[in-house]
């Protein structure tokens, strides 16, 4: 019995030792990691987005102005041609047009190599909508959390339109529960280009975020009929729209 006991104890320690020694290491990969930067540029069709009284036109021909535009990007995954994936841990970013610094995000500790694909979620995964630390980008103080309702607002656009019944536009897209789940995961095409990651290098991937894509695609949004949504079936329509084509890779600077 005594022998058995010490065997168990020894086995236990051996089983847990790697956890103790490796769980906090930041560069456990064999080759030295590098960084990847994602730069977001907000556009409305061909025009750069301005929050200062600039008028735009949607696919339906409705005029509109934008006063607020922000959204979550989460669970960034980079993939090599051989299928090897780098999944960033704690990968949550709030990109806000009114905060220029938020439009450049840095993915650190990416293992060296050539990456040919980028995937991320528009919004916040369902797990994190209901549990986990609400700090940093996920802090409710950012005004992107429906405290009493159903998790995070994933994409928030506010503005005005003369076609809107009461003149305003409020598109708060969010909700993770069926049947009105608005979590969408996208893989904007890198157009055959590669991100070359190596120690001391920070290749930059430039993305264009096109607001018009919210209002066109599977469902042409007419502001006279839909000018306000905060989750629910109408938010699903907008999410279906932006899942195809809101993000396009502009260029890669290696």
């Amino acid at each position, binding site marked *: 019995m005594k022998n*058995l*006991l010490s065997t*168990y*104890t020894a086995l*236990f*320690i051996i089983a*847990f030792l790697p*956890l*103790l020694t490796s*769980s*906090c290491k930041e560069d456990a990969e064999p080759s030295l990691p590098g960084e990847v930067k994602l730069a977001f540029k907000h556009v409305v069709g061909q025009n750069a987005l301005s*929050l*200062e*009284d600039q008028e735009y036109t949607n696919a339906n021909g409705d005029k509109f102005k934008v*006063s607020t535009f922000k959204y979550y990007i989460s669970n960034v995954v980079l993939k090599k041609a051989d299928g090897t994936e780098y999944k960033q841990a704690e990968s949550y970013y709030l990109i806000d047009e009114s905060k220029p610094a938020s439009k450049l995000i840095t993915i650190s500790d990416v293992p060296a190599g050539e990456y040919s694909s980028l995937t991320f979620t528009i919004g916040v995964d369902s797990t994190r909508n209901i549990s986990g630390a*609400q*700090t940093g980008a996920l*802090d*409710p*103080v950012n*005004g992107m*959390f*429906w*405290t*009493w*309702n159903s998790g995070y607002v994933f994409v928030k656009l*506010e*503005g*005005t339109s003369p076609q*809107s*019944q*009461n*003149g*305003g*536009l*409020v598109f*708060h897209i969010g909700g993770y529960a069926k049947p009105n789940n608005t979590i969408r995961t996208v893989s904007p095409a890198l157009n055959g280009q590669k991100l070359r990651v190596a120690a001391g290098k920070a290749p930059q991937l430039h993305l264009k975020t096109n607001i018009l894509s919210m209002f066109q695609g599977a469902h042409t949004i007419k502001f006279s009929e839909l*000018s*306000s*949504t*905060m989750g*629910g*079936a*109408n938010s699903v329509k907008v999410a279906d729209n932006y899942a195809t084509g809101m993000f396009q890779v502009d260029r890669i600077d290696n």
Partner: protein
Amino acid sequence: MSTRLTLLTALLSVFSFWSCQKEESLSAPEPEEPEEAVIYDLTFPKRFGSPTIPANNPLTQAGVDLGRVLFYEKKLSGDNTLSCGSCHQQKLAFTDGKAFGVGVGGKIAKRSTMALANVAYNTSFNWDGAAATLEEQARFPLENPLEMNQNIEEAVRELQSTPAYPPLFQKAFGTSTITADLLFKALSQFQRILISANSPFDQYRDGFKTLPPEEIEGFMLFMTHPDPAQNIRGGNCGDCHGSDLTSLQQFHNNGLDLTFADNGRGAVTGRSTDNGKFKAPSIRNIALTAPYMHDGRFKTLEEVLDHYNEHIQANSPNLDPLIMEASNQTRGKTLALTAEEKAKIIKFLHTLTDEFFIQDKRFSEKLVK
């Protein structure tokens, strides 16, 4: 054996937890000096998130103690008749019950005195967000000729010449040489401990008590944006007064006027698109902080609800889309709450009154000896 294994597992998990845990103490990091500084342990519910405490002004017991006597120090006004506490009275949740603050010599301030509760969480200060930190904010009322009308250097000289203050600064900041910077730091430390988190609403949120159904319904209405298409009724308040802190820290034109006597946020940013916008402040203890709005135009909560429900100026420039696009009726032009719903929201608002906060002895008037 199982006991031993359990113990081992516990030890291992504690060890690995410790080894990975970054310092996440809620109180500020220990300052370099003064050496024997006692950290002030700020307590608040997790649902509030994390307060913003500048790295160069950690909360210490000595700093908070100094800030408290300074908050109630009349030497901070030009004619030594007013302290911060003259307008920010604890019994009224640190307001004064007036439409506009009254400054030295009976002068009338430009805007209504703001309540102080949970300001450690604010990302901007004053109705127009002119100050980014409490340390910056402290200068505004002190120097404003319509408020305390004091020359900061004069205030510093007056404090320096007293027997009481230099040792208190020594204890708090490791130097007996008083400066405007240290004065503002001490005042900020005291204001950061003004945490209101023990109202009936808080006790309900923490699961310690229930609220009557009407108050809970009022709470749900308050926090809900109406959507007649989904049959959702809402008071539309939480769009701006959201979260447990009841403020999302943003600036809005809430449709009070067609033209602006006070451009508010626009005067700070210089952008015409910000004209008529003011901060949506925390509404904690709102039943104690009448009259309401930046100019104190509404005497009662009933008048406030009537404004949002029936009297929004739809053609006011920069009117917030969150207000434009909020009706409980399909294609409605106004919020269209029923009288019963408005009454429920007001009942909820009263649950935000924190009797412990307004009686907390740590916040009450204390003068230097």
